[in-house]
């Protein structure tokens, strides 16, 4: 049964694009009505928008490699519900509290019912098995008061990647209602931790940003630290104590093989890719002095970017690749500095009381997140010119921030006093919605990937 939903193309793998097409917007939307269903985030603290997300029906229940399409419809709805709730900006009415939706109602919602639920917005959709083995997930967003359709998208995926279609649908809803960029269809690399405080076992791990599809990449035999995705997400750069020589490597996620980046005897650490993937910026300690260097991502001779006698480390590129923020104690205490990507023009930007470390430039370019050390350790943000410093958290030891792809959410790790146990947490850039990210073991050093294509 055709619903008039136009879409194109197939994705065949994890990093292949989930292609979708947005058909022309509905022509009957009254002027001004579009402004009624809007999540107000400008003010900083918003009241979450009630949004109804019923299960997604299927035109014909069909067995697939990922389960039958009726079951998938419920699971897709659940993934979308969790994504929107965890953003802190929505208060979803989940499928259990709602009347089931028939397939023919997906494009013709019974608005009086939806109004009665208290929802301001409504997400409907369907899951369909195509004859060629792929799935189609249809995704529709409605303004319940105005009784209009706000947007629609269709996604075609291999059954194994049904979660990506659900995240893409959630991103469609989220971006349409908030005006922010998408971030749900993304992954997190981090260091999974377990064991006693004086002998932690650390393993590299990756998972979807909602914790699903968790996978260990290393076996814990050597300490691994500070992983970072390449922009194309095919590799991860990180530091490892392989052979008791702490140095940076590039790990190929597909093959599971790691490659030494710079073959020389000094300790190299704190690696990060440039936004175009051509360079890795990193730190190298030579005889007690640590500086920032960059090297071609395919290997070669490092180019030294800083020469100060202090500890210069924690380098992070601006999203346009023209600048690098880093930390240095050349003034006597750890502070933030910004320089051009070639090392010229180094200027200090932090001047508040306390010490600043682990800077990361937002993918939006507007802010730099950092760890601030005073009495405790807290995560904060500052504009690249050093203005507008804002502290977002207040744990005993919160550190190591990483930005979501849309520059809206910051993931970090929080260490317990005494126990030394670390967990991943996230917080909205306005400081609200601080929440723990569930992981199978403990976790530290989170690195959020770019949006999957």
């Amino acid at each position, binding site marked *: 049964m055709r619903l008039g939903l136009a879409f194109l193309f197939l994705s065949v793998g994890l990093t292949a694009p989930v292609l979708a097409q947005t058909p022309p917007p509905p022509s009957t939307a009254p002027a001004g009505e579009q402004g009624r269903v809007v999540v107000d985030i400008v003010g900083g603290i918003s009241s979450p928008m009630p949004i109804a997300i019923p299960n997604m029906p299927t035109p014909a229940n069909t067995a697939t490699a990922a389960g039958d399409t009726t079951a998938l419809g419920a699971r897709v709805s659940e993934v979308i519900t969790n994504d929107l709730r965890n953003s802190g900006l929505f208060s979803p009415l989940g499928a259990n509290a709602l009347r089931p939706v028939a397939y023919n109602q997906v494009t013709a919602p019974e608005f009086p019912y939806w109004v009665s639920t208290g929802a301001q917005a409504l997400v409907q959709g369907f899951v369909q098995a195509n004859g060629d083995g792929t799935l189609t997930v249809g995704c529709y967003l409605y303004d319940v008061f105005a009784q209009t359709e706000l947007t629609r998208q269709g996604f075609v995926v291999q059954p194994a990647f049904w979660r990506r279609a659900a995240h893409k649908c959630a991103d469609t809803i989220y971006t349409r209602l908030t005006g922010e960029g998408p971030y749900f269809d993304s992954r997190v690399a981090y260091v999974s931790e377990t064991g006693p405080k004086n002998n932690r076992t650390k393993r590299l791990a990756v998972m979807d940003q909602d914790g699903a599809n968790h996978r260990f990449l290393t076996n814990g035999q050597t300490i691994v630290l500070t992983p970072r995705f390449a922009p194309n997400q095919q590799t991860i750069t990180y530091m490892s104590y392989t052979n008791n020589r702490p140095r940076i490597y590039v790990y190929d996620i597909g093959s599971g093989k790691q490659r030494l980046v710079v073959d020389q005897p000094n300790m190299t650490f704190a690696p990060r890719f440039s936004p175009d993937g051509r360079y890795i910026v990193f730190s190298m300690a030579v005889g007690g002095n640590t500086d920032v260097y960059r090297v071609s991502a395919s290997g070669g001779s490092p180019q030294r970017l800083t020469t100060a006698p202090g500890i210069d480390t924690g380098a992070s590129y601006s999203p346009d690749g023209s600048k690098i923020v880093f930390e240095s104690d050349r003034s006597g205490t750890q502070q933030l500095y910004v320089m051009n990507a070639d090392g010229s023009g180094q200027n200090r930007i932090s001047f508040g009381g306390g010490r600043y470390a682990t800077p990361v430039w937002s993918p939006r370019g507007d802010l730099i997140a950092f760890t601030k050390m005073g009495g405790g350790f807290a995560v904060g943000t500052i504009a690249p010119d050093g203005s507008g410093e804002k502290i977002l958290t207040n744990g005993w030891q919160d550190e190591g921030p990483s930005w979501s792809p849309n520059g809206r959410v910051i993931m970090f790790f929080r260490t317990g006093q005494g126990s*030394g146990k670390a967990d991943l947490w996230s917080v909205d850039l306005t400081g609200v919605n601080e929440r723990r990210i569930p992981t199978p073991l403990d976790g530290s050093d989170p690195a959020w990937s770019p949006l999957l294509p």
Partner: protein
Amino acid sequence: MAHISTKLIVAAALVVTAGCAKKKPEVLPPAPAASTEAPPPAPSTGPVGNTVVPGSRADFLQKVGSDRVLFGTDSYELDGEATAILDRQAQWLAQYANVTVTIEGHCDERGTREYNLALGDRRANASKNYLVGKGISASRLSTISYGKERPEAMGSDEAAWAQNRRAVTVVPN
């Protein structure tokens, strides 16, 4: 990695039994040539028991008294106590000229990950440079930083942190 960790724990246990690093050193036993002990058995035969092989880690800990020096917060400066320990380490290393060592630099947990790796490197090199200044060849002294990854003391208080801010001279077993 587990191999190194085991060695650290063994070294720590020996330090504890040999006396706290902060005590005054005991009178050193006489040099082997003047020793009234029976000559030690060849390393490959006889019980390990009470006999300490000259030039071994156990010998180092027994004669030097401490394999480590401690640092102040955020610092890599060697105070008087540290240089006294390193002086004795230098004497021992001069005596056993074939021994190469690894100097590990460590930090307490009250620092960020990358900075502590660099600070550990500073501390390891502070020890190394002092020993080189005492005439030990740099080629015998390799360094490694563990940042805050391998604390000695498990607490989250000043006493624990003070023990964790350290540079440890590791002699092969």
